[in-house]
């Protein structure tokens, strides 16, 4: 049921650009919409048109290259941010509690800064390092056929890490006041043991709910990061070459893996904690 809604929603967004013209909002007529629908169901024939040069090119298979690029950056960023946030939570759990309150207030302040600022600062820092130390270990802009993957992924990972760390710390410290925690401590369990085996199970469900929101945030930053690093990825197809059928196919190609991943997460949570989650 829900996938149908999503597909319909994405279709509606794709045709939304037909409703706007320089003169204002208008109704394009059913024929235009049906035309879009017809062209969508024949994806092999899809072409994309470069608006400045007017050259038509086939959409497939070059879109797979762009897709691999974008997905690589996204998965790398999410993996890095979850890893760093988990490690951070673990370390802070073993440390005195004052450090945690300090980190929490810092992260809550940092999470309100617009993401463009982080991209900006990262690029500034890279340029400064290059001009001062003449050290260019990793690519920091995409140009021609070379694409930067590591640096955009790292920059993209900054904001999710802050969000993940903030929520993880909140949840874990909430559990600290619970009865079962007191029981475990009184039984003499080591602190790390409690955290990893027992608290994680309870926190997992709430955390996975937050995760959906944070993934949405990361996806929206992903397009900005790709655009600003001049990478050849899905952003080009969604923004520059965006005729409705192209937009629809691109969006579907991009969001199907994300949707499948969320479903897998649901199954994983169900298996480990015996609770049904609806993502």
């Amino acid at each position, binding site marked *: 049921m829900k996938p149908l*809604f*999503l597909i319909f929603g994405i279709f509606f967004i794709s045709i939304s650009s037909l409703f706007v*013209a*320089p003169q204002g909002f208008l109704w394009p007529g059913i024929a235009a919409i049906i035309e879009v629908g017809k062209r969508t169901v024949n994806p092999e024939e899809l072409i994309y048109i470069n608006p400045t040069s007017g050259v038509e090119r086939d959409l497939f298979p070059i879109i797979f290259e762009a897709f691999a690029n974008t997905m690589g950056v996204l998965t790398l960023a999410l993996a890095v941010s979850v890893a760093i946030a988990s490690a951070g939570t673990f370390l802070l759990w073993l440390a005195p509690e004052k450090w945690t309150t300090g980190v929490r207030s810092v992260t809550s302040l940092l999470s309100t800064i617009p993401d463009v600022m982080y991209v900006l600062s990262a690029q500034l820092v890279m340029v400064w390092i290059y001009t001062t130390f003449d050290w260019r270990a990793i690519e920091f802009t995409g140009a021609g056929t070379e694409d930067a993957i590591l640096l955009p992924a790292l920059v993209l990972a900054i904001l999710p890490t802050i969000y993940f760390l903030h929520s993880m710390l909140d949840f874990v410290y909430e559990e600290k006041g619970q009865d079962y925690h007191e029981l475990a401590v009184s039984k003499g369990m080591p602190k790390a043991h409690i955290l990893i085996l027992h608290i994680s199970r*309870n926190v997992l469900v709430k955390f996975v709910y937050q995760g959906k929101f944070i993934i949405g945030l990361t996806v929206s930053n992903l*397009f900005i990061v790709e655009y*600003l690093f001049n990478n050849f990825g899905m952003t080009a197809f969604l923004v520059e070459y965006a005729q409705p059928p192209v937009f629809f196919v691109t969006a579907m190609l991009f*969001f199907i893996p994300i949707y499948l991943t969320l479903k897998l997460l649901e199954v994983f949570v169900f298996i480990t904690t015996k609770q049904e989650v609806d993502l």
Partner: protein
Amino acid sequence: MNKKFWLQPRFLISSLFLVVMVTASFIHAWFFDSHIPQTPFINLGENVVGPPFPPFEYSILGTDSNGVHLFYQILQGAKYTILGALAIAGISFSLALLIGIPLGFNRRGTSKWVEHTISVLYFVPASIIAYQLLNPLMREQLSGFATSLTYRLVAEVLVIAILLTPPATVLIANLTGEFLKKDYVISSRLIGSGAWRITRQQLFPYLKNHILDLFSRQTIQAVLVMTHLAVFVVYFGGTGIGFGMGGGPPFPVTNEWASLIGMKYYTIQTSAPWLVLVPLIFLLLFLLSVMGITGSIKRHGNVDSSVKEEEQEPPQELDRPFERVSGDQ
């Protein structure tokens, strides 16, 4: 704490910043006709020095490579940024309340549909949707703009506000749903009070803190969407494009702060980094002021100490209730 919150220093400084910027911007528009000075070059005796000039040397906040003074651009853009972002946040927030509260009251069959429609927004970022809808409208054509500035501003504010409404609506609906399960509310309903009375007498005090948080978050989201659009060269109020040989890069018609950042983004790698940093600092000050205002109202505007207790409940109740897994399962 019965202190009047409008006398707190945090509230005063934050609102002072906003009021001063908006007033100065309007004075600049009405009395000086939005004139932005331009200094093509400066004659220093025998040397002729050309732009861009860094801040505090010959101009207050520096100039760009054509000699256009940044300070006056910021002044002109202040009213559009501040009033625009606050308008977007206000509209989306009121819509969320109007739709969310009734939705919370009858959560029988409608919530599933609403949540499914809203989940599209988790997958396709709001900035991309806004770009699809606003790009054709905002680009200047060969024959100039076909619509007036007011039309474009209103369209942009409405589109972004509608895009930002769904997550807020879901939040308010969930909160209302949780609230309706409280004992004193159930008793009120049993006695026979109607929905409007419950809303007014009991719901609003409960929601007050959340409403303030929501407003500041919506403002931050609004600025975020405007910045994303600016990066994609869709400037707030219109993208002026100079056609012909002497035309420069696309420029924002209203000189709004986020659009200034978007327009001057390329200059971070040149010798004029203040062109991006100055609007960015002003944007951050704006966000800090909004957070300061809502934060000080939250902390000092409440008389009851029972509100402190409410503050700890919400994080757990926002998700759907589920069974707790105990430690020794």
